[in-house]
């Protein structure tokens, strides 16, 4: 098994971010999807996919979430329904790796949405940049035990800044997907990971 994992850059990673009406996958709506692929270690902006999603009946959009994503009902009214969007996701994720910042939330929403639409969740390998950040933090602690034990920086923008990446405007699904993919490239390098297995 040890050598069966492919070199990291041979895999295709789809970096994905959702804008949602809240953090509860059972109750809240998916409002926007942004995703783009990382092929041979490079983000391909031209293949980016982004769409707004018309909220399903009975799903909530909390006022706090609106502050964050700035999407109001008027924006999403004419957008395609989730049922039309999910096959686009499925097609892209097939045979690829899903790349997200803080996987539990996104995975919760996606799995639930696929099930509700009667689609099979493609179950791609998942790379979570939050997990990679924690791994990097643990490694630095081992190497420099004398440093003060600040809690690790896990917020996407803050983590990017800490690792020397430029500030991007947050909370647009595709921009966050781009931001996550760049963060992934830096973390992959910092961790010295050579194979996909070391990243999932």
């Amino acid at each position, binding site marked *: 098994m040890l050598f069966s994992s492919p070199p990291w850059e041979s895999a295709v990673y789809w970096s994905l971010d959702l804008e949602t009406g809240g953090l509860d996958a059972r109750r809240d709506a998916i409002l926007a999807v942004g995703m783009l692929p990382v092929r041979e*270690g*490079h*983000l*391909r*902006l*031209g293949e*980016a996919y*982004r769409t*707004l999603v018309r909220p399903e009946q009975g799903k909530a959009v909390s006022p706090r979430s609106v502050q964050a994503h*700035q*999407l109001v009902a008027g*924006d999403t009214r004419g957008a395609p329904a989730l049922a039309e969007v999910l096959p686009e996701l499925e097609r892209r994720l097939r045979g690829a790796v899903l790349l997200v910042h803080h996987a539990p939330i996104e995975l919760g929403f996606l799995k639930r949405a696929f099930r509700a639409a009667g689609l099979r969740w493609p179950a791609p390998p998942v790379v979570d940049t939050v997990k990679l950040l924690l791994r990097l933090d643990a490694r630095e602690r081992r190497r420099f035990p004398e440093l003060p034990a600040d809690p690790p920086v896990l917020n996407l923008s803050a983590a990017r800044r800490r690792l*020397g*990446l*430029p500030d*991007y*405007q947050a909370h*647009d699904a*595709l*921009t966050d997907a*781009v931001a996550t*993919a*760049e963060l992934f*490239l*830096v973390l992959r*390098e910092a961790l010295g990971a050579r194979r996909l297995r070391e990243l999932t």
Partner: protein
Amino acid sequence: MAAAALDPVSYLRATPPFHALPQPLFDAAAASLEVGYYPAGSRLARVGGEPLAHLYVIRKGAVRLERDGQLLQVLEEGETFGYTSLITRKATIDVVVEDDLLAYRLPDAEFQRLLGDAQFASHFAVGLAERLKSSLEHSAITTFQADLSRQVGDLVRRTPVWIAADATVGDAARLMRAEGVSSVLLRADPPAIATDHDFRNRVLAEGLGPDTPLARIATSPLRTTPATAPIHEAWGLALDARVHHLPVTRGGDIVGVLTSGELLRASAQGPMAVLRGVERVSTRESLAGYGRRVAEMAGALLAGGLDAAAIAGFVARLNDALVHRILRFAEADLGEPPAPYAWLALGSEGRREQTLLTDQDNALVYADEGEARRAWYEVLAERVNADLELAGFPACPGGYMARRWVGPMAEWRGRFDGWLDAPGPQALLEAAIFFDYRRVAGRLDLAPLDAVIATAVDRPVLLRFLARAALGFRPPASLLLRLRGGSTTVDLKLQGIAAVVAVARCYGLELRTEARGTLERLEAARDAGILDGDAVAAAAEGFRFLNGLRLRLQLRAVAEGRPPSNEAALAALSAMERSRLKDALRAVKTLQDRAAFHFKTDF
């Protein structure tokens, strides 16, 4: 929500020459945009290897363009590279990531399409001409294109940050954090400066708190540089003052503060870089490699258009800083000196005319009261000699090193007197080396030694002997300088440089000038009316040329892994250089003729 442009796309749009592209053309290109991350040290292209297949725009980080290990250019945020590859289909430059690089890139095909836009294409045509020129030069050394005559004012990026005279250290720290700067100017009379270093060394390390008045730890008066000064002069200033922040003035106002980092950016291999290297030498084990860094710096400066004399000035300052460092290590181990001493540099190092690291020539003299503890000084000398060897200064084969030449002032005076009284061949040789001494470190007053040297003029026999020795260095007759047959090589040192040095020393001794530099000594002789201006001008010009040529050939040898020598093969020189070499040697001969007459060497 309108789909806003992605950050990388809007960044590209704001970056010249993309800002001027028609929208449809830009949109088509942006659809192929990629983002890549390349850690520091990655080599994106290698001369003669695979050419780059993309045009890169730097979003974060920096890239070095190099050829044969020589720095051509450092590119930073907003700058583009890859186009020489895309246009010439060849890799003519090494592209190395200097700081972790986040880059946006366009594939070759998109770039070629954009070249259809005349304005876009013209932007690259200019850069291309410059880069091709610099990358196709035959000599590695001459390819360094950083314009060292640029003014420091050009480097200033922002106005200085000021704070009121009654501010506290805490106020200053908060302001500096908010402004993202590493120094702050105190609006006092005279103005003062406080830096990150001061907060560490003068506040925290001293156990002071944030309520400490800033004025108490700030430095004044300021060391400033006029905005019109060339960058290399600002380097010199920062090196001499050992400061990392240099306020820049224009018309009496401070228009900005340059950090050593910014000066460093102007040339990644400049003296500031090496100085920082010296300062980072925290243990004796890390001395190794110093010599190589100095050679790299000298190469960059030479190619940047500085003459060998100016470069030698930088090298001397750096070597001095290194000796200070080494002495600090030694004193930390050995304890306080029992009595004041002086560390002397001799020979070319004393004259500040050394460019590459050559053999050590040094000596140690201490106050007579220290004689009871002679062993302390002997151990010190041994330590410093050993550390300098570690740093890349070979031991002197003739043995003119402090480990042997150490003693109290009385002993040294006697020795100097002896050379003057009995100028035998060995005494002449030693006098020539020791009379060019320069104090590098230590507090001992050397006036007694200067007083002995000043008596040389009262002993015409000595000067006559020294002048005769100076005539012993024989430049070849220019008729014999041929590409084939005759003399096909010239020893630039023995047949040229050394003759000028030796003649100039005689004039310097006669005039009792304290100047040690060869050119200064010749100028003093001209000013005193004992040497005609034409001969001085020609000899000075020749001396500069010979030193520059020697340095260039030595650097090439180092770059090619050969030991540097003083030999110049005529076949390896251009026609112009051969002709200048002949002029230079003729000027040396003329200078010797004048000295023969003046010092009556035939009697």
